[in-house]
C-alpha cells in the first residue's frame, strides 16, 4: 500500500493525497464515516485505561493506512512527510480524539531514530510503534543530570556483540507502561562529557530492568524511575555510532521542542474551544490574549514541521517553539482558572472539573520538561542571538 493506493481506496485520484489539504479533507471524511467504530476517548483517573483507548485508536488508524502516512516507504510507511502526520493530529484533535501519550513519543523519538539508526531495524520497530502494539519512552534525564544532560552517568560497556547498561533514569514519561526505552548512556568517561555518549534502544522487558512509577503532582502516573542493572543490549540496537549519542540527543530534543509543540497545540486548541464556550464578561479579553498566544504557537510550530519535512532538525532554533508552547499552555489554564472560578480548585460546578484541574497542574510543568524555560532562553541567547557564553 502507498499513499497513492490509499487515495484509490478513498476514491480520490492517484497522487492527490500527497497534497496536505486534500489529505486533510480525506482524513476528516474518514473520521466522520468511522465515528461509530472508533474508540471513545477514555476519561477518568485510570491512566492505563486512557492509554488503552489511545492504542486502540492507533491500531484502527494503522489498519486503515493513515498511521503509516508521513513515513517513507523505506521504513514501512506509505510516503508523504511530517506535514501529513501534523495534519492527522490536527484532525484527530478537531474530531475530539486524544493526541497524547503514544503520539507524543512517535513525534519526539522516531524522527531522530530514523535519521541515526539502521533503516532495516528501525522499520521493523516503527511498525510496532505505529500500530499501537508497543509504547516507547525516552531515557535521558537522571537523578543528577537534568538541565546539564552531558553529565549523565548511566554506563554502557562492551560485552560480546552487545553492551551491558547500568544506571538510573528519572522523570521518564510513560515508562511504567512502555515496552522499550531509548537510553542515552556513557560509553566514554565522565570527563568526555557529551563526546562520550551513545544511544541504545532497550527492551524494558529485559532482565535487570526495574521500573518504579512516580505519582505526579496532578495525580497521574505518567512519570517513572527506571533502573538498569547490567541490562544486555545487542549491538544492532545501538542507535547511531558509538560516541555519537549527543548528536542524536540534540535531534530528539529538537523534536521535543518543536514538532511536539505542534502536536501539543492541537490539544490546546480543543481545550481553548471548550473554555471559550464557557467564557463570559471579563474573561473575554483574557480569551483574546489567549487567541494571540495560540496563533503565535501554531504558526511557529508549523514552521518547525515544515523544516522537519525538508529533512532538517532545528537544533537551537527549536527553542522558541517550546517557549511559545509554555506561554500558551500556562496562559490557557490561567484563563481556565478565571473562567471556571472556584470550580477549578474545589471541583464544583462543571462535570469534567477533574480533567481541568489535572491539566491546570500539568500546565505548570511545561516550563520544566524538555528543557526548562531558562535553558530554552539560554539556548536562544547564545545560539540565535549570538550572545557570549560565560
Amino acid at each position, binding site marked *: 500500500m502507498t499513499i497513492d493506493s490509499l487515495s484509490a481506496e478513498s476514491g480520490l485520484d492517484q497522487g492527490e493525497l500527497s497534497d496536505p489539504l486534500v489529505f486533510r479533507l480525506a482524513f476528516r471524511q474518514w473520521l466522520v464515516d468511522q465515528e461509530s467504530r472508533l474508540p471513545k476517548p477514555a476519561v477518568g483517573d485510570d491512566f492505563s485505561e486512557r492509554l488503552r483507548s489511545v492504542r486502540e485508536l492507533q491500531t484502527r488508524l494503522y489498519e486503515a493506512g493513515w498511521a503509516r502516512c508521513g513515513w517513507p516507504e523505506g521504513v514501512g510507511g506509505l510516503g508523504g512527510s511530517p506535514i501529513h502526520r501534523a495534519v492527522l493530529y490536527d484532525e484527530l484533535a478537531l474530531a475530539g480524539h486524544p493526541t497524547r501519550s503514544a503520539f507524543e513519543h512517535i513525534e519526539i523519538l522516531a524522527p531522530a531514530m530514523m535519521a541515526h539508526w539502521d533503516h532495516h531495524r528501525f522499520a521493523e520497530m516503527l511498525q510496532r510503534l505505529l500500530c499501537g502494539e508497543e509504547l516507547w519512552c525516552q531515557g535521558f534525564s537522571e537523578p543528577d543530570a537534568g538541565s546539564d544532560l552531558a553529565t549523565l552517568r548511566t554506563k554502557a560497556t562492551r560485552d560480546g556483540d552487545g553492551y551491558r547498561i547500568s544506571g538510573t533514569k528519572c522523570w521518564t514519561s510513560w515508562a511504567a507502561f512502555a515496552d522499550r526505552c531509548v537510553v542515552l548512556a556513557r560509553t566514554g568517561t565522565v570527563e568526555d562529557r557529551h563526546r562520550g555518549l551513545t544511544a541504545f534502544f532497550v527492551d524494558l522487558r529485559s532482565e535487570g530492568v526495574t521500573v518504579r512509577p512516580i505519582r505526579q503532582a496532578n495525580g497521574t502516573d505518567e512519570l517513572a524511575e527506571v533502573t538498569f542493572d547490567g541490562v544486555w543490549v545487542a549491538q544492532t540496537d545501538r542507535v547511531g555510532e558509538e560516541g555519537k549519542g549527543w548528536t542524536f540527543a540534540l535531534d530528539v530534543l529538537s523534536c521535543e521542542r518543536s514538532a511536539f509543540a505542534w502536536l501539543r497545540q492541537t490539544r490546546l486548541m480543543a481545550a481553548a474551544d471548550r473554555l471559550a464556550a464557557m467564557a463570559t464578561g471579563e474573561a*473575554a*479579553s483574557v*480569551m*483574546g490574549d489567549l*487567541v494571540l498566544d495560540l496563533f503565535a504557537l*501554531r504558526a511557529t510550530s508549523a514552521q518547525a514541521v515544515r523544516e522537519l519535512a525538508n529533512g532538517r532538525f532545528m537544533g537551537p532554533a527549536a527553542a522558541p517553539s517550546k517557549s511559545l508552547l509554555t506561554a500558551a499552555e500556562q496562559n490557557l489554564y490561567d484563563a481556565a482558572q478565571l473562567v471556571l472560578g472556584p470550580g477549578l480548585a474545589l471541583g464544583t460546578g462543571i462535570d469534567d472539573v477533574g480533567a481541568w484541574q489535572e491539566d491546570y497542574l500539568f500546565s505548570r510543568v511545561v516550563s520544566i520538561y524538555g528543557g526548562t524555560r531558562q535553558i530554552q*532562553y539560554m539556548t536562544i541567547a547564545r545560539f540565535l542571538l549570538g550572545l557570549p557564553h560565560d
Partner: protein
Amino acid sequence: MTEEFTAAAEAVLRRSPSGIEPLRELEWAPVLDLTDAYSAESFVALFRAQGRSLATTPALGLLIAQRLRMADGPQDFSTIASYRAERVGDLVKATVATGAFEVERIVADISSDGLLVGSPSAFSTTGPQPLDAGCANVVADASALEHVAVDGLAEHRAEAERIARLASAWEILGACEQLMSLAVSYALDRRQFGTPIGALPPVQQLLAAAEVEVVGLRHACQVVMSEEARSLAPDPMHDAMLVKALAGRVSVRVAQATLQVLGAIGFTWENDHHRYQRRALTLDALFGSYRQLTGMLGATSRSPLRRVGVL
C-alpha cells in the same frame, strides 16, 4: 525569499527614506495587488523594511486610497487617504502620512460624513506632532473639501482597514527586529563587572524572552500572508485583527525588554530606541490597538484559528 526582499527594500529606504521616490524605485505597483506570492513578498518587504529603517513613505496612505477606490490603479501616486479622520464642527481633523503634501489629493474618511477630498493646500499641520511615526496631524475647513460618493463604501472601508492592519503588523515587526538588533549589539559591546553584559544570565534571559515574542510574530505574519496569497484564509478580516493585535502586544514587550538591556542610554535622544518605540506605539494606536482588538477577538471567541493553510 522574504529576507532578501526585505534587505533590498531596507537598503533603498535607508538611502531614500521619505516621499514617493523610494516607492518608484522599489517598483511599488505589484504591492497593491496582493493576490500572488510575489506581490505578498513585496508588500511584506516594504512595510517590514519601513519599520526597520524608520522611513516615512506614504505607502500606507496610497494603499488605503486605492482600497477606498479613490486611486485609479497601482501606478496612481496622486491620491492618499488619511489613517484616521474626524469631524469637529466645521473642521476636519486627520492623521495622514508625512508624504501627503507631495500628492495631488488627500482623502479624509470620516465615519459620519463619508469621503471628503481636497488638495494638500487645504490642509495644514496642527498641534503636537507624532515623532518618527511617518504621519502628521492635520486640519482643514470642511467647506474646502469636496464630498465624493463611492458605491459600496462600507465594504471598501473594511478592506482598507484590513490591509492597513496587515501593513502595520509588518511594520511593527520591522521596528521590533531593529529594537532587538540595537539591544543585542549593545549587550555585546557594553562591559560591566569585567564582562560584556550579554554574557550575564539576567540579560540573556531578558533578550531571549523578547526574541521568542519576535519569532512568534514573524511566523504569525508569514502564515497570514501566505494564506492570503494562496486564497486559503478562512476569515481574512479576523486574520488581520489577529496579527495587528499580536504586533501591538509584542512591541510593548520587546520595547520594554530592550530598554531594560540598554539601560539609561536607551532612554535618551542619543540612542534610537525611543524612535522605534514611538513608531510601534503610533502604529499600535492606528487601525485598532492591541487592547481594542484583543477585546474583540475574545468576544468572538470561537475563532477560526485552526486554519488549514498553516501547513
